[in-house]
């Protein structure tokens, strides 16, 4: 099934929660409003015509200039061998999205990583802890305005350039 | 003279370790002290030229029973500060019992007609033991085997976990 058809089916079900335009790409991008993302993911997975049984990737992108955080969901269907990319934009100040970890189990870790590194809050995720950074780390390192702390538990994060030593 | 010194050394080890078993507050220390007692007893048997008995003492008590005891102790948690459980009896009754038993034992010791024999050449005892087991003492031997077998079956029944689907 091609992207236009997937897009049409989604819009039939969810109406204006799905943005009207598709960005043609190798993974066609379909914009979705934040509130509808979990619902559209569930529809795409459960519909036997689309049957997206695999969440290939979940990434958050910090668009500081637009004051937005984009979250990309790369879905893949092993049965039909087709793919789609859902994109959600949420406000940078308080990014919050419904979780997809109940739809695909791998979403658990991918969402935890996005939370850890980008500070996206996934509502309904049962166990939203830091994954890669230490538990007591302050801030979300992949944000564009993240400033590395001078030291962590007494360990300096700065080092003189080896050339100057 | 030297043999006497050795004898007292081993006797001291046995009694000292036995005291350690009784007095140590740590169950694991008690168990390891028990090993000293058992080894000392084996030494005593060796002094009495009972080589088979000495070896069997080590084999059964150190190799089997002590290791199983240690096993059980180590699998129980918080071993180091276990409350010694037999304090509930109290000191006075304990002293009373010790006194009564002690008087009895010493009386028996002094009244018994001890047969004093000069230590001769140590002779192999294995053959004699085997003959006795399968000759005059066959019935008690077999009875003991049956008792042990019953105990074994009982232990298995008790420790077997219920298998339910």
């Amino acid at each position, binding site marked *: 099934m091609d992207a236009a058809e997937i897009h049409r089916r989604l819009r039939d079900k969810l109406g204006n929660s799905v943005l009207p335009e598709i960005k043609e790409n190798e993974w066609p991008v379909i914009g979705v409003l934040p509130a509808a993302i979990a619902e559209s993911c569930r529809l795409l997975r459960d519909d036997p015509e689309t049957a997206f*049984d*695999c969440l290939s990737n979940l*990434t958050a992108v910090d668009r500081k200039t637009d004051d937005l955080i984009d979250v990309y969901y790369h879905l893949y269907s092993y049965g039909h061998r087709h793919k789609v990319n859902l994109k959600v934009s949420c406000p940078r100040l308080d990014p919050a999205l419904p979780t997809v970890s109940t739809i*695909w189990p791998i979403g658990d870790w991918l969402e935890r990583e996005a939370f850890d590194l980008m500070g996206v809050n996934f509502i309904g995720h049962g166990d939203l802890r830091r994954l890669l950074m230490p538990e007591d780390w302050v801030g979300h390192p992949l944000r564009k305005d993240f400033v590395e702390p001078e030291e962590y538990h007494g360990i300096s994060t700065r080092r003189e350039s080896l050339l100057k030593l | 003279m030297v043999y006497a010194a050795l004898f007292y050394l081993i006797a001291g080890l046995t009694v000292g370790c036995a005291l350690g078993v009784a007095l140590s507050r740590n169950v694991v220390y008690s168990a390891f002290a028990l090993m000293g007692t058992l080894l000392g007893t084996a030494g005593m048997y060796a002094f009495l030229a009972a080589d088979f008995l000495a070896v069997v003492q080590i084999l059964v008590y150190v190799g089997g029973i002590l290791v199983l005891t240690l096993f059980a102790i180590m699998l129980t948690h918080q071993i180091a500060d276990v409350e010694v459980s037999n304090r509930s009896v109290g000191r006075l009754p304990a002293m009373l019992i010790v006194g009564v038993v002690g008087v009895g034992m010493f009386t028996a010791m002094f009244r018994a007609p001890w047969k004093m024999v000069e230590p001769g050449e140590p002779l192999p005892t294995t053959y004699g033991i085997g003959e006795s087991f399968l000759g005059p003492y066959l019935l008690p031997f077999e009875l003991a085997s049956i008792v042990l077998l019953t105990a074994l079956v009982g232990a298995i029944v008790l420790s077997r*976990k219920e298998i339910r689907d």
Partner: protein
Amino acid sequence: MSTTSIEIGLERETPAGLETEEMTLNMGPQHPSTHGVLRFVVKADGEIMRRAIPDIGYLHRSIEKISEKVGYHGFMPYTDRVDYVSAMQCNQGWAIACESLAGIEVPRRGEYCRVIACEFGRIASHLISVGATAMDIGAFTPFTHALREREKINDILEELCGARLTFNYMRIGGCAWDIPPGFIKRATAFLDAFEPLIDEYNELISFNKIYTERMGNVAPVSAELAIAWNLVGPNLRGSGVKYDVRKDEPYSVYPEFDFDVPVGEGKMGEVGDCWDRYMVRMDEMKESCKILRQALGGLPEGPVVAKVARTFKPPVGEAYVRVEGSRGDMGWFVVSDGTAFPVRTHIRTGSYSAMAIVEVLSQGLMIADLIAVIASLDIVAPEVDR
């Protein structure tokens, strides 16, 4: 599914007064069989695990953040460090992602060189994997034999690019260097010697009774579970899903080669058990040899690298490409805003999802089985943490 919501499937009835306490074991971060710096919090009841909770991040170097500082060309050496056991495919993933952004056509000879490098890298990586699996099961000899062959591959790759582990061989638009003179002869000689050795490994370890007992029927992953957890590559194929990015979503010049996609068949137990995953890697080495022979035989003439501007500024947009790395398909996601530095790079690796599934697989296994599971999933710690 969150880690807390997983139901512990080991609710055994014990007679009253015989409750045993769970023992919490800390496996790692420094443990001989965690293949890098990983940590598992193992809740065990004696030798049986209730659950093993993976704790990652000990090797997190924020490679994704580095890409935002060093630019497209400059990031190439860092990709080697994503999965240092098979760095070539990481090189290729990044190169293809950038080329896909800018629409660059790679010369055919360059593509062939890439394929040769990648397939050698795959064999080297699988050798490490199968050798380490055998070592974790307790047989040390297959590991040294595998490393012996890997050294030879390292020699070959060293000839190609001057490095033995972190190759930095590829460039956006092709490869850094053409193959050296005499390379094809030496590479073919290696293949001639290596192919019979695969059978020897199988004789030595794969069909060993103890080995099959340890690996067979342990932690089987059904095809549905594997897809839902996004297991990729050999782990997915071990579960019986015939899917290979090289075949099903072709990139580079892979469609020109004839090779099979081995899948797990459940010869030693259920489909998708540890032995199947292990055996898929064994078979894949043979397939890689096939590809290598075709690539070495049909190497076209021409340049190896396309003309790419020194300050590479791809147009605004995003690209998500997948390449078949040694540990399954690696997703390379890159967002460009038209400057010389990517806005965001994300690398979704094979070990990442393999690590995530360990907690589900480990319930009710024995501690020794956890080792087999980790080894058969072929988890490489830096790839998990990036």
